[in-house]
């Protein structure tokens, strides 16, 4: 079982777009290792020939007529925007990971 180091936690947090404060890091690292230790139990079973279940029902494709239906107005779509600029969502300029 892989131990989640501080470096790995920071890497995963970056993938998940979570800024973690130092106080959180210590607490989460220990809790996540406890959780990971418990869930790793699934690796005890030899399931080489068992198919995976991604969905509990037998999947069939659902077809729908390709016809226009009423949709949200621009005003409704922007109603909950933290910040807008005319008909656009407004965000701060970029940054890099």
């Amino acid at each position, binding site marked *: 079982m*892989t131990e*989640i180091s501080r470096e*790995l*936690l920071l890497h*995963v*947090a*970056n*993938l*998940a*777009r*979570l*800024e*973690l*404060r130092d106080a*959180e890091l210590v*607490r*989460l690292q220990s*809790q*996540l290792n*406890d*959780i*990971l230790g*418990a*869930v*790793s*139990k*699934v*690796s005890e*079973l030899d*399931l080489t020939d*068992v*198919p*995976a*279940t*991604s*969905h*509990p*029902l037998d999947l069939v494709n*659902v077809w*729908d007529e390709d016809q226009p239906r009423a949709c*949200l107005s621009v005003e*409704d*779509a922007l*109603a*909950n*925007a*933290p*910040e807008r600029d005319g008909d656009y*969502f407004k*965000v*701060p*300029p*970029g*940054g*890099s*990971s």
Partner: protein
Amino acid sequence: MIDTLRLTAEAASRLLDAKEVSSDELFAAYLAAIGERDAELHCYLHVCDDSPGDGIPIALKDVIGTKGIPTTAGSRILEGYVPVYDSTVAKRCKERGLRFLGKTNTDEFAMGSSTENSAYGPTHNPWDPARVPGGSGGGSAAAVSAGLAPWALGSDTGGSIKQPSALCGNVGLRPTYGTVSRYGIVAFASSLDQVGPVARTVRDCAFLYSVIAGRDHCDTTTVDVPEVVLPVGERLEGVRVGVPRELNEHEAIEPGVRDAVLRAIELCRQLGAEVGECSLPRSVDYGLPCYYLIAPAEASSNLARYDGVRFGYRTPHAQDRLDMYKRTRDEGFGDEPKRRILIGTYALSAGYYDAYYGQAQKVRTVIAREHADAFERFDVLVTPTSPTVAFELGGRTADPLAMYASDLLTIPSCMAGLPGLNIPCGLSDGLPVGLQLIGPQLAENLLFRVGHALEQAIGFDTVPERLR
């Protein structure tokens, strides 16, 4: 005088039909009860002063999108969010004249087993306010038991309808996966999430299920649902009841819970059912780890949408866009969503996918097959819903794994997409014990039949002793 603690939705409907009471009077009676008792219990995150319709009031868990009514999922990141469209279940309730009393408290994003993970503070159990109502749908379950709603809707991913119903002493159904639309529901783990009813009687629960169930073109995972039959019979001849050893003899089950469940199993026999033992050898030991990989993995994907761009909270402190995403999510999410996002992101990341998520999906197949084998010999399985009665507030918050174990007995059937019904089956130390009835897919009518017969035989008083 309307006694909201005892009035069932069915009785309320009769009063409305006979014009002995108006819909407005009913609504006002529940608002008055909320005004009287909700300051102590905190079942509601939002109470509606009024709501259109000519029918019975209903409460909705706050993960259910309601046009024009705030929907927070118990999270700061959705504080102030007001949906611009109705979820399909909200729409179906409205079409039947049901009036929204408000939105009920939930663990943040339905992640939890005690409602203590709500960013807006916990709900208290109406039987003992020092104890939790269960979770995540503690608000809906407590509201129904405390007479603050005649019935309610919840959502269940690994036990969030059944377990709070057990701890609050009422009836809750987690329907078969695919029977109820998730359109407009705040998503947690999409291969598991189901919306379902909470009520004070099995008949009310069955009726409310009939209102919300059925295919929806807005949710392509929905299926055609057999017509719902309201249960009437009091006997169980011809029903084969299986008692899975691992779910009934687990060491985590308290003696008082075990005794009440054994009495209910004996009642099944007396009512004419054929009762036998069966085994689900790997479903319990591996169910919990399987769930706590699959649900966080799917959650990490579903919760990616909370980025501060289109709706919900945005940090005021951002330097640039990437910083805005990260700080918004750090400030907006509480500890439990963060833990699950991190575990899920890790379990899905390159190099670990096969060992965790892939392996968990195979375990899921094993669990589904074990249940299918049991249903070769039995029509319905019975187990305790929760290994314990309601625990004290704060009792499990410091240890996530102790909290996760609350769902030990509800998770296996959820993994297999099976319906489960909780009914109260007695008291232990003055607190309700829940009996879980599990059926094959789409066997809701059978669960209602067995649940109703047992309910009549048990005669449990759903009104908390301290409120009688």
